[in-house]
């Protein structure tokens, strides 16, 4: 089974990157692949709990991160250094990702057959 990693490294709403990358992950999940979602850098803002982009008349795609498991995407990694560096703590986030260190993420990317970023 091919292993795919999608790496979120951009904050939401200033660009469409996060949302369009999420769509790639969901589509790939319909095929028989082992998919991981990895959040690093400003990508950790994608997982903030209380997002309200409806006030910008944009759709809130963050609830879909909570549904990733239903789509068979069970590996969700969050770089703890990125969180600490941004003065953020785990309780501010959606409870979906496993906190891990940079070295683990590096190994995970290394072992993937495909890697997508947007």
């Amino acid at each position, binding site marked *: 089974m091919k292993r795919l990693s999608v790496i979120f490294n951009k*904050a*939401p*709403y*200033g*660009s469409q990157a996060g949302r369009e990358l999420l769509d790639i992950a969901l589509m790939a999940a319909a095929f028989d692949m082992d998919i991981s979602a990895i959040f690093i850098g*400003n990508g950790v*803002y994608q997982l*903030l*709990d*209380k*997002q*309200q*982009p409806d*006030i*910008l008349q*944009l759709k809130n795609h963050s609830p879909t991160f909570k549904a990733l498991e239903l789509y068979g995407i069970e590996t969700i990694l969050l770089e703890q250094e990125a969180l600490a560096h*941004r*003065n953020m703590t785990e309780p*501010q986030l959606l409870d979906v990702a496993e906190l891990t260190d940079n070295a683990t993420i590096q190994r995970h990317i290394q072992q993937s057959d495909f890697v997508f970023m947007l």
Partner: protein
Amino acid sequence: MKSLYILNNPANLEQCLSAMAPDDALLLIEDAVLLCHQHTLHNSYILEEDLIARGFATKQSHWQAVDYPQFVQLTLQYDKTVTWL
């Protein structure tokens, strides 16, 4: 002349600050509101809508929150605006 600098990308903060004169003010909008935890200048504002949209509460910010009507007023209180891109 006093300027209102408008910043929309957090990656550009440092260069923007280096261009600003002491009496100038800075307003964070769009993705630049992610800088809300950083230490502030004396005249520093943050667009409330963009902060809330991204999941932050106004009280979490060290910057003075403004809404769009106040944003318009700020552009008139300063002699010009500089949107730092």
